[in-house]
């Protein structure tokens, strides 16, 4: 067994860390200030500028195949990079990437949807959740009824990230009620100007998703993504990718937070001693370090499995569950270490606290991950104590 990274991986890790530190972290104070005043922390233009700077260094299209100009670095490198991005709360990621399922576009669709997304000219959103179907995505109701060479969409989607900003949506709708998720759900590429409306949903986080309303929205048949009736599988593929990207970000955030906690504990004096000398605080530091270490290797193992073409679904669920819970525990402890200061908006801790809470909900809640993990075991897809 060998836990060492390759020279390339280490260099990429170091370069991204430096880039984030020198180019992105300087925006942190601005982000906190703007958000305190109810404005977006960082503008689209500023993000674009950072992305162009990174692109000049080749950091563009981390997961995008070379034929589209991407770097296509593979799962391990992406996990390492995502951990580094997680070290800042500035909502930055490298440009040049598109939702994984957009690669199922046909040639004509690629020109209108995939390529413009890769090039940052158009924005997408992924819309499966409905008011009556979240965890139970199989029970979505949005209907798509064929009318000549069009489909007519009716229904509502909710909690759609970027739903208010996107130019088009990947919408999952029922084309065959009988079959439902077993061959009766289809994914459509639906431009905003085909007539859907969106409304922003304020949340405890700094950015909000949107609800999307479809009233007799006519979508041309050629806008089916993939195949008729094969939409549910695409939806699961999309969600599958987040299963290790989310905990990777969580690891980066938790590492930065723990360092803040350690630094503060060494300087904050109460009853004549730095609080770092109190066991209560030391245990918070130790517990956090242990959990971060575990989460990091769970994520990297899941990524390693993906990279080696193995079925990583079980491991990815473990990573998503453990990483999200870990980050919530770490940010809670670090907030506690900071006392009243941690609760203020002077520091980013309370912001991270609010953001991390989402990680336990979207793209499969904690409970849904546990459901998957236990089912795999109960049904014998995975065995306890399998030889590695």
């Amino acid at each position: 067994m060998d836990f060492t990274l390759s020279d390339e991986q280490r260099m990429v890790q170091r370069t991204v860390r430096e880039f984030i530190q020198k180019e992105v972290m300087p925006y942190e104070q601005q982000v906190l200030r703007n958000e305190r005043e109810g404005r977006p922390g960082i503008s689209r233009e500023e993000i674009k500028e950072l992305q162009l700077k990174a692109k000049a260094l080749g950091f563009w299209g981390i997961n995008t195949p070379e034929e589209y100009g991407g770097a296509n670095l593979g799962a391990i490198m992406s996990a390492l990079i995502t951990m580094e991005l997680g070290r800042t709360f500035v909502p930055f990621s490298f440009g040049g990437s598109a939702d994984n399922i957009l690669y199922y576009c046909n040639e004509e669709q690629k020109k209108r949807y995939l390529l413009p997304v890769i090039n940052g000219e158009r924005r997408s959103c992924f819309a499966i959740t409905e008011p009556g179907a979240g965890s139970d995505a199989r029970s979505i109701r949005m209907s798509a009824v064929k009318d000549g060479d069009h489909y007519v969409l009716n229904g509502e989607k909710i909690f759609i990230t970027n739903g208010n900003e996107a130019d088009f949506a990947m919408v999952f709708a029922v084309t065959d009620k009988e079959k439902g998720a077993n061959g009766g759900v289809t994914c459509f590429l639906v431009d905003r100007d085909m007539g859907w409306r969106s409304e922003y949903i304020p949340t405890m986080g700094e950015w909000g998703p949107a609800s999307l309303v479809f009233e007799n929205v006519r979508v041309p048949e050629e806008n089916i993504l993939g195949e008729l009736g094969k939409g549910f599988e695409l939806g699961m593929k999309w969600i599958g990718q987040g299963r290790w990207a989310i905990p990777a970000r969580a690891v980066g955030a938790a590492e930065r937070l723990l360092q803040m906690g350690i630094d503060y504990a060494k300087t904050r004096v109460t009853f004549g001693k730095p609080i770092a000398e109190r066991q209560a605080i030391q245990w918070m530091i130790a517990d956090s370090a242990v959990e971060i270490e575990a989460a990091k290797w769970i994520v990297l193992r899941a990524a390693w499995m993906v990279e080696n073409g193995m079925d990583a679904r079980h491991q990815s669920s473990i990573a998503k569950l453990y990483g999200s819970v870990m980050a919530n525990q770490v940010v809670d402890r670090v907030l506690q270490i900071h006392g009243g200061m941690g609760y203020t908006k002077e520091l980013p801790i309370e912001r991270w606290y609010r953001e991390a809470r989402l990680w336990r909900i979207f793209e499969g809640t904690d409970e849904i991950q546990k459901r998957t993990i236990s089912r795999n075991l109960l049904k014998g897809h995975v065995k306890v104590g399998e030889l590695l």
Partner: protein
Amino acid sequence: MDILVLMKQTFDTEEKIVLQSGAVSEEGVQFIINPYDEYAIEEAVKLKEEFGGQVTLLTVGPKRTEEAIRTALAMGADQAVRIDPGDEPLDEFGLSKILAAAIRGRKYDLILGGNMAIDTGSGQVALRVAEELEIPHVSAITKLTLQEKTAIVERDVEGDVEVVEVGLPFLATAQQGLNEPRYPSLPGIMKAKKKPLEQLTIADLALSEDELRPRTTVTAQFYPAKKQAGQLLSGELNEQVSQLAQLLRNEAKVI
């Protein structure tokens, strides 16, 4: 335009110095390219991009130095030479003999190094190398403009700028302000491993024992004394001034 760059791998500036039985411990420490050498690498790569030629790195260091070498190759250097120092003690005198011996026989128009290494801070090695090779040297440069057979160089002299013209080939050491070192690019990182890295030992350089013998020894290493709490003066301005003068004379004994 063939350029040689002298590079050293040093402690990460963010590392805490830990003394263990009188020596600085390297356990668990991250190493980086000496920041001043990064300016030298950047300048060399920039000149190569403008005028063509090859950039060759030279470094004396243990196996771990290869990480710094790969990073410099990822920044755009073409090839590297690592000379393993072995276990014998060396000082700036011996190091410069080693580097000069490794350089003799190579083609170069310019040698660049850092103004000093941030760990030992002696700032001697590069200049000694120039003396060994009997070429001119200019230290602490902040600007380098190449002409036909000479270069116009600006150097930092304790805050002032001195402008000198110097004939090629020469050696210069880089000061902060010379340039803004680039990040290694992703394609650069991926290519770095394929670039030639020549491995030498001291034995390959045919130096005599006397040439390697340290001329200096480190007798002790210790942490700087803890800073004392300052003394606040109070009262009318006039009184404070006279108190200060008294203290400087009687306690600090500096006037």
